[in-house]
């Protein structure tokens, strides 16, 4: 299981000087098993990093560690300054109205009431929720909830956005609307770190690929190169569909 870390040639959108998210000596055990073990990792400073890997590889746990929701047993994580947000594998909307869900995020971000209300209204109408502002957020369809969670995460203009399978279980139209949101966020300078099980999506959106296998980095590099010819055994197995957790 050698980590085949390739050169870092990515500077999308002229973000060359943006600080990187860096990880050193990261270890995390859960349930008595070492679930994450990463000696050295630096993510491309802008654009979209796709985290790939089999079920149970540790992708969600890695995102939680990077986002600071879970404390590592060992190691350091240095993140560029700025707000981070995350959309979870199962999005959590508050038991409030559509409007109040966005308003809440902006309130915690410290934005004053008048400005908050203005931007929530603007966001809702821009994304087609204008007529449902007062509806309970939990009464939206699964796909709409996912999209609202995404809009909420983006509402605070995060420096880094973590997305854990944001379009799992969505239909093609909903998926492409989520992908449009991701693209526009990346264009505006948000660093996106995203888990997906969809190689097509990784190809469409990814600037960089990070392949996780049993909590370790099996391969990291530009997406185009990864899909053209992965250098690791795990990478090849992943692409031909034979990468499983068990040996």
């Amino acid at each position, binding site marked *: 299981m050698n980590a085949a870390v390739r050169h870092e040639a990515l500077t999308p959108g002229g973000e060359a000087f943006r600080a990187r998210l860096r990880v050193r000596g990261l270890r995390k055990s859960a349930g008595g098993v070492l679930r994450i073990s990463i000696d050295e990792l630096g993510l491309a400073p802008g654009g979209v990093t796709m985290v790939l890997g089999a079920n149970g590889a540790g992708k969600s746990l890695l995102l939680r560690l990077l986002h600071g929701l879970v404390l590592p047993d060992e190691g350091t994580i240095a993140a560029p300054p700025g707000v981070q947000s995350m959309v979870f594998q199962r999005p959590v909307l*508050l038991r409030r109205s559509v409007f109040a869900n966005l308003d809440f995020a902006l309130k915690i971000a410290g934005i004053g009431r008048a400005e908050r209300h203005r931007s929530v209204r603007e966001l809702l109408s821009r994304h087609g929720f204008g007529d449902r502002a007062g509806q309970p957020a939990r009464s939206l369809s699964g796909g709409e909830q996912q999209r609202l969670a995404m809009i909420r995460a983006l509402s605070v203009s995060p420096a880094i956005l973590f997305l854990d399978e944001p379009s799992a279980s969505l239909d093609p139209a909903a998926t492409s609307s989520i992908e449009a949101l991701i693209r526009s966020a990346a264009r505006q300078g948000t660093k996106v770190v995203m888990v997906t099980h969809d190689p097509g999506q990784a190809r469409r959106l990814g600037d960089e690929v990070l392949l996780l296998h049993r909590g370790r980095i099996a391969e990291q590099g530009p997406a185009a190169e990864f899909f053209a010819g992965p250098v690791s055994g795990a990478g090849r197995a992943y692409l031909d569909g034979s990468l499983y957790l068990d040996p």
Partner: protein
Amino acid sequence: MQDFSQSFLSALWLILSGDGDLWAIVILSLQVSLGAVVIAAAIGMPLGAWLAVSRPPGRRAIITVLNALMGLPPVVVGLALYLLLSRAGPLGPLELLYTPTAMIAAQAVLVTPIIAALSRSALEGLWDEYAEQLTSLGQSRLGAIPTLIRDGRAALITAALAGFGRAIAEVGAVLIVGGNINHATRVMTTTIALETSKGNLDLALALGSVLILIALLVNVAVSIVGRDGASPSGPSASGTGPQMAGAR
């Protein structure tokens, strides 16, 4: 039998004619129990919320004690408060014994653990659901308490109603610290006990009917709140509705 139906008719008449004594007793009962619930909620809800989100040492023990205190016998609470408030007691100089204030205090002691324990269990479920998202949005644990109280308000109202049901139906505590003084500290339950023992069934039956009506209304309120507050994935305080029978 003749006596009985006679009593029922006079009881009905007492209620419908707006008998002054009867309604004074009902109103005092409501004031005392509502006062107690307000105080108990002010203490119990934040306490329950704090226990739901934080992990202080001895948390398990605190929760176990709270759950045990839910079944506190009212007479024991009355006795304890009596000892505190009686002339020789530490709080004797306040001269609160045999006043409605003492009765409110006694019921508040009785109801606080109920509201705290029910709030804790409801808000803990909500916290499980919200914790990561709220943390991700940048809210601290303690900062999350108002959020949980707001979004869990249906369960909290149910907890308060359960507490009210317990308070309005108990006899022992108010009897001991209130003294059942005519026109001063007589509430529905203590009056029913007294009048029944005196053989004055009219007033006892009338008050009993009003008490049952209130119990019914509280339960209706609980089920309405429970229905509105019910959400597909959420915790609810169902099965913890007020049990007025056995609230001795």
